[in-house]
Structures are given as structure tokens and as C-alpha cells.
């Protein structure tokens, strides 16, 4: 495949996968700017290694794993000094702050932010990226049984946190 075709191939992959990957990483890290930067970097790395990534059985999972492993780039740390958000604090911030607050459900995001990081990652991969248990385990480097345990605990915690909200919505 020529470079031009590879670029078209990658562009199509990016078009179809970028939003989903961004949402997955957003649920994992809790901050939209951070998620956008991590996903951009992961897609850039995917393009840099496109011959390999395009043959990966689950390229979207590759991108998300790379994004989660990357952390905030050295460049950004050096020049902008933006720390990785403390999710425990994010959860307590007023829901209306920031542009992304207008786009995400603040109560759901706050409930997600209170989950342990691993549970949040499992929720993101299983529910947003729609990976099965085996692939989720592979991406996170944990056993499939551990994925199911994390998901079960996360769902129980989310149900507890969100039940009043959903009941209210249903009643109104």
C-alpha cells in the first residue's frame, strides 16, 4: 500500500474512531483537555506505526491503551505545567465550570470520578469502547475475572450514586 493510500486508510480510521476513543479516555481520566491531548498523541503514534497498528486486531483498543499509558506529554508538562487532574478533587468541583461541563453529564462524571482508577478504566473500555471482557483484560493487563469483578463493583457504586437522579428523570 502506498503512502497516499495509507494516509487515506488512517484518515478513515481516525474519522471513525476518534470520538469513541476520546470518550473512553475522558471517562478514564476525567478531564477533557487531558483526554484530548492523550488521544491525539496516541493517534499520532498510531500513524507513526500505522503499518503495525493497521494490522492490530483491535486498533481502537491499541489507541486507548497507548493514550492511557502515555500520560501527559513531557512537552506539555514543560511548557504549560498542567498537572494530571486529581479525580477526587475534580469530582467535587462545581459542575458548571469549564467548557466540557456543558457537554458531559456532570453528575455521571462526578460519580465516575469517585471510582478507583482501575474501575473507571474498566467501565470506559467495556461500556464506551464496547470491548468484551477478554479484550478489556488484555488492554489493561489484568485477568478477565478481575475485569468482571471491577465492573461489578463499579456498576454497584454507580447505581448507588445515580439512582436518585435517574428516578427523578423518569418521574419528570
Amino acid at each position, binding site marked *: 500500500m502506498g503512502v497516499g493510500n495509507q*494516509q487515506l486508510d488512517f484518515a478513515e480510521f481516525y474519522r471513525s474512531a476518534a470520538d469513541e476513543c476520546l470518550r473512553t479516555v475522558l471517562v478514564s481520566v476525567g478531564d477533557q483537555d487531558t483526554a484530548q491531548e492523550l488521544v491525539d498523541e496516541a493517534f499520532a*503514534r498510531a500513524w507513526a506505526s500505522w503499518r503495525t497498528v493497521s494490522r*492490530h486486531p483491535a486498533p481502537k483498543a491499541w489507541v486507548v491503551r497507548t493514550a492511557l499509558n502515555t500520560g501527559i506529554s513531557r512537552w506539555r508538562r514543560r511548557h504549560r505545567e498542567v498537572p494530571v487532574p486529581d479525580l477526587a478533587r475534580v469530582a467535587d468541583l462545581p459542575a458548571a465550570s469549564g467548557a466540557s461541563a456543558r457537554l458531559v453529564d456532570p453528575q455521571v462524571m462526578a460519580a465516575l470520578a469517585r471510582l478507583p482508577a482501575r474501575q473507571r478504566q474498566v467501565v470506559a473500555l467495556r461500556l464506551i469502547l464496547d470491548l468484551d471482557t477478554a479484550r478489556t483484560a488484555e488492554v489493561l493487563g489484568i485477568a478477565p475475572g478481575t475485569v468482571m469483578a471491577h465492573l461489578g463493583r463499579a456498576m454497584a457504586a454507580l447505581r448507588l450514586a445515580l439512582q436518585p437522579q435517574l428516578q427523578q428523570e423518569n418521574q419528570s
Partner: protein
Amino acid sequence: MNDNELSTAVRESVAEIHSATPVARIISRGRSVRARRRIPRVAGTLIVAAGAGLALPMLLPSGHPDSHPARIQLDAWTVAKQANGDIDVTIKQLKNPAGLQSTLRADGLPVNVTFSDSASDDFKVVQSASCRDYDLGLDVLNAVFHNTYAASGSALVINPSALPSGVGVNLFVAPHAEYWTSRTPAAAAKPLAPGTIPPHSQREQALMIEYNLVHTSQQCTG
């Protein structure tokens, strides 16, 4: 509220989020990444196929000045020093950790190597009691260790020049639990449909290489 309703609520909570970055910018950034030979990294753990004869792709220049030939290739593991100083380590069998350790030390890498026969899936870094963990953060870890995606056939690459003074490397290698297996070479020749997991009949035992940074000392890193 059932699981479906809860799942829907989570999905809908971010459904309005869209990537704001044009693909042209991603491709431009990707070219920079490629130009700097930066490659995808996994912090801390690498899974490789055991016994699969993973090939290291580089050819090394003749007249290598180091104390041992630039490439040491045994059945169990391979060490190859690149012209830029990076050291490629491929481990295929859990044999002769002392030989691997002394080979890496001869390449100037302060390192402690441990092999375990016990399969594990907890990804807990194991190190000798004589070693002390040195947590310098992900940036330093990623500067020292990187790997091409395991399916491409290479393995762990160590960049000794990125090690700060007084910092060494700990490598722990063990078989992973059954789940972590790679496709056999014969099975790998047949492409899988996207999103599918190969059946167990197409898999073989995999090894897990865990790595972290440690304080250098005579007892730990030689």
C-alpha cells in the same frame, strides 16, 4: 435501575463529546514522532511469546568496540546493542538469568535480572531484596524502556543513556497465566477479524517482562 439503564446513562453522559483535532494535525504530529523514532511504549510490563523465535530486525555494524560481540544470541534470550547505544533484549525461555545479567552489565547497564518459573497474572513488579525501587515517574521510565508492539516481533529496548546517575534497571521475567498467550506462528499467518480473540488452540505460553528503576548498588546492580 437495571444494568442496561445504567450503561446507557454512562454512554449518554459523554455522547456529545467529539474530537476537536483535525486529522491533518495528527498526521503532522505522527511524522514528528516517526522522525524521532519514538515508538509506542508500555510502562512496566511487556508480554512476549515464549519460544517463538522472535527476531530482532537490526543489523549491527562490524568492529563493535564493546567488551563482547554486539549481538549475543542464545536459545533462551538475545541481547543486541544498537549503534546508538540502545540495548535490545528478547527473552524466549526462562534459562540462564545470570548470563543475561552479566551480558547486560558488560554492555554498561546497571541491572538486576530475575527469572521465575511461577506463572503470575498480578503484574506486581518483583525485585531482589537487595534492590530498592527508584520511582522517577513515567517520563523517565518511558525514556529508558520502550518496545515495539509485541506482535511485530521485537521486544524490550533499553536506552542506558536515559538513566540518571545512580539509577539502575530491574528486570523480572515470568510466565504469565494462561490467558496471556500469543498466537502460534502458524496461526498468526492467518489474519483475525477485527475485535476477535484467537482461540486457546492457537495460543502458546507467553512470558511477562516487568521492568522498573532501582537505586544502583553493588548488591543489586553490580
